[in-house]
C-alpha cells in the first residue's frame, strides 16, 4: 500500500526502532499507520515481540571481573619488552644465546682449521658434474698452468724410439 507520503516498505524499515521505542513515529509515519491496517497490526505485533525479548536478562559481571582483568593485564605488561637489553634479564634466553655463540665460534674455528681444504666439495660432488670439473681444475692448477710451456717445447729430432 502506498499513501501520499510513505510506503509500506518505508515504514517497515522504521518498525524495529518504532517498536523498540528508540524512535518516535513522525507525522508521516502516523498518517500511514492510521490508513494502513496491515502496517499498524505488524507494528503492534513487533511491540509485543520486543516486550517478550525484554525478558531475556543477563547475569551481572562477577566481582572478580576487574581482578581477573588486572591479572591478565599484568601478564600482558610482563610480556612486553622493556628495551633491547630486556633479553639479558631472562636467564633462559641468556644461556641459549651463550650456547649459540659458543657453537658458532667452534664451527668457525673448525672450518678455518681445515685450511681451505676443498676435499669436502670434491667428495660430495658427483663425477662429471660441473662442481666435480671445477674441483679437478682447481686441484690440477699447477699442471694446467704449465700447458703453455709444454706447447713451447721443440720436439727432439734426435731421439729415437728404440735406441
Amino acid at each position: 500500500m502506498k499513501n501520499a507520503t510513505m510506503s509500506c516498505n518505508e515504514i517497515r524499515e522504521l518498525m524495529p526502532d518504532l517498536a523498540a521505542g528508540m524512535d518516535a513515529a513522525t507525522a508521516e509515519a502516523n498518517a500511514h499507520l492510521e490508513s494502513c491496517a496491515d502496517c499498524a497490526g505488524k507494528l503492534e505485533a513487533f511491540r509485543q515481540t520486543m516486550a517478550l525479548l525484554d525478558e531475556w536478562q543477563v547475569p551481572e559481571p562477577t566481582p572478580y571481573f576487574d581482578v581477573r582483568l588486572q591479572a591478565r593485564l599484568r601478564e600482558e605488561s610482563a610480556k612486553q619488552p622493556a628495551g633491547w637489553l630486556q633479553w639479558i634479564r631472562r636467564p633462559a634466553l641468556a644461556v641459549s644465546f651463550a650456547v649459540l655463540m659458543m657453537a658458532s665460534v667452534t664451527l668457525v674455528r673448525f672450518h678455518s682449521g681445515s685450511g681451505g681444504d676443498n676435499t669436502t666439495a670434491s667428495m660430495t660432488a658427483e663425477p662429471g658434474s660441473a662442481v666435480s670439473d671445477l674441483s679437478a681444475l682447481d686441484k690440477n692448477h699447477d699442471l694446467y698452468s704449465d700447458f703453455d710451456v709444454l706447447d713451447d717445447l721443440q720436439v727432439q729430432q734426435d731421439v729415437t724410439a728404440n735406441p
Partner: protein
Amino acid sequence: MAIEPRPAKTPVASSEEGTSGPQTPQLSARRRVQASVSSVAIDRGVFAMTPGATRPHERAEAVLSGDGLSDAEFMLRVKTGDESAFSYLVEKYRRPMMNFMYRMVHNAAVAEDLAQEVFLRVYRSRESYEASAKFTTWLYRIATNLAVNHARDSRHERPEHMVSLDEPDENTGLAIDVPDGSLSAEELLVRRERMVAIRQHVNELPERQKIAVIMHKYQQMDYREISEVLKLSESATKSLLFRAYETLREQLKEFV
C-alpha cells in the same frame, strides 16, 4: 581523521539499574556510567596492581573531572600511556560487553572471559589506535569478531537446543524447582520455557541477523552504529533487522 563529537554530559545511571527486573529492559550502559560502581572501580583501578601504573586514582579523578571527553579522546589518552583513562573505559563498557557476550555465547563464564579479552585487545592496540572511527564501533567490532570466532570454534560442543530446563537459571541463579517466593512452580516453568525459546530463536537466526538484533534490542545501538560494525549500508541494516524481528515475531508468537 575526525574525532567523534563531544557529548554534552555523560549521564549517570543509578546503581539499581544493575538488578533490573524482568519488565525492565536491560539497557546498555553505553552512554552511561553507574556512579556507585564507577567510583569503586576507579578506587580499585584496573591498573592498581599493574607494573608501571602511576597513581591511577588521582589521574582518574583528573580525567573524569575533564568533563565530557569523548570515548575516542579517552582512548587517545590511553595511547599516550594514561592508564586511568583505560580504567575509565573498562568501567564504562564492562557491563555492556558482558551483556553482549553473554547473549552471543550463552555462558556467563565464557562471556566474562571474552569480555575481558575485548579489553585486552583494546589495550594491546592502544598504540595503533586512530580516532578515525567511533570508539564504540571499534569496540563492538572487536567484540563481534571474538564472539563469532568463539561460536565457530565451539559449534559442536553444546547446541543451544540442548538447554535443560532442570539446570539452574544463569539469569536468576535459581533452579526451576526452587520457588522465588513470588512465582508458583508452574509460573516458573512457563517463564523458563519462554526464556529458553527466546534464547533459542535468537540464537538460530542467521549470524548477522542475530548480531544485529542483539546490538539493536539489547545494546540500544542505532541503525548507523550497527551498520558500521557490520560493515553494511544503513538501508541493508534496516532490512536485516526487519527480517530478523519478523522471524522472531513468527516463532515466538505462542509466547506473546
